[in-house]
């Protein structure tokens, strides 16, 4: 595979063509904040945390969906980016009802960890306190829309890896919601195979098994990444 020269954070690098900026950073030990990205499923650039600055381009571009091009000069850790990462994180918390004290994922939550990483001690925006439902109709799992950050990992893993296409999305903006089938109760789904992949890849306490209580949730998002990698081996 042909290699092209790029500069990331003042480091001159040789990267294979066709790689995304995120892949190039990972291969070279450059850390980038991500939330909607998960190894093994397709990237959509939903969370905007991996935005990077590219010299000569006015707007910030997501590292997960932007491919490297020859002689690009990329910056991943500028003050401007850090400012936006903090704002993005605060907006996640302000948009829905994230109450860590009563959440199953407390202490094992990618959103909490993100808050600590960007140094969020409080949210500077007014909380929206939207009315969001909790769907407990599935015999084994719960979907709590209060805690959903619309990363759409569940939607993608369900269609791309399980092939069930149970999860979808309705509405736009702050009205946006993840839906089961045609916006019917999850328990009534004719497509869900109860495989638990969505539950394991969900970064927050939005999807969880009924067997856990507050602070007890342990997720295995890497389980999906490993499964996808093994399938590609054609054993």
């Amino acid at each position, binding site marked *: 595979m042909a290699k092209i020269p790029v500069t990331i954070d003042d480091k001159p690098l040789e990267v294979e063509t066709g790689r995304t900026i995120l892949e190039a950073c990972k291969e070279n030990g450059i850390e980038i904040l991500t939330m909607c990205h998960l190894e093994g499923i397709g990237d959509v650039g939903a969370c905007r945390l991996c935005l990077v600055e590219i010299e000569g381009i006015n707007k910030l571009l997501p590292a997960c969906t932007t491919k490297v091009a020859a002689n690009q000069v990329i910056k991943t850790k500028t003050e401007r980016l850090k400012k936006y990462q903090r704002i993005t994180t605060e907006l996640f*918390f302000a948009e829905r*009802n994230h*109450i*860590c*004290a*009563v*959440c199953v994922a*407390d*202490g094992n939550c990618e959103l*909490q960890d993100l*808050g*600590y990483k960007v*140094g*969020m*001690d*409080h*949210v*500077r925006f*007014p*909380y929206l*306190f*939207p*009315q*969001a439902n909790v769907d407990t109709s599935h015999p084994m799992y719960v979907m709590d829309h209060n805690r959903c950050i619309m990363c759409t990992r569940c939607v993608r893993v369900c269609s791309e890896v399980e092939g069930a296409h149970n999860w979808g999305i309705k509405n736009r903006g702050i009205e946006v919601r993840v839906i089961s089938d045609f916006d019917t109760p999850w328990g009534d789904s004719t497509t869900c195979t109860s495989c638990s992949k969505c539950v394991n890849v969900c970064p927050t306490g939005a999807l969880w098994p009924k067997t856990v209580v507050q*602070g007890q949730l342990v997720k295995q998002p890497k389980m999906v990444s490993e499964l996808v990698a093994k399938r590609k081996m054609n054993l």
Partner: protein
Amino acid sequence: MKKKKIGTVWLGGCSGCHMSLLDIDERILEVVKLADIVKCPIVDQKEFPQVDVALVEGSVTSDEHLHELLHVRKQATCLVALGDCAVTANVTGMRNYLKKEEVLNYAYVEAASNDKEGKMPQHPALLKLHEKVVPLQEVVHVDYVIPGCPPSADTIFYVLAELLNDRVPNLEQERKLKYG
């Protein structure tokens, strides 16, 4: 150095943050070397006095809390939001998705323990609940925040020690950030 004054107040919260404050145990002796605790929920004094550091637990849920918080803001040089309720509204904010009347009705009239004889309390001396519960920073300027439900005693002691020694605490740098 002149001895400083600390005051603490408990608004819309569960007192858990004050319990966590007590959990600093013998380190309270370090604190009282540097400052007098002139007001807290067990000090019998009506008005919140002038202080250098005010620790405010809980969110703003009613006219009484709003009045008290505005008063504390005037009296305090440094106002610290103590705990998740003060910083994010937390559990106290969970009634924000419902109408105030629904919440009151459920607590006083419909609750099973009321044996169908429950009445809405109407006494004029009672506080009036606001329609929405909000964290402190939506009402007054907050100088410092300590998130956590409750914040750990170590974190509270760290912040107090820094403030009383005229330093600015940095929870991020000290890896002491915690929600929930």
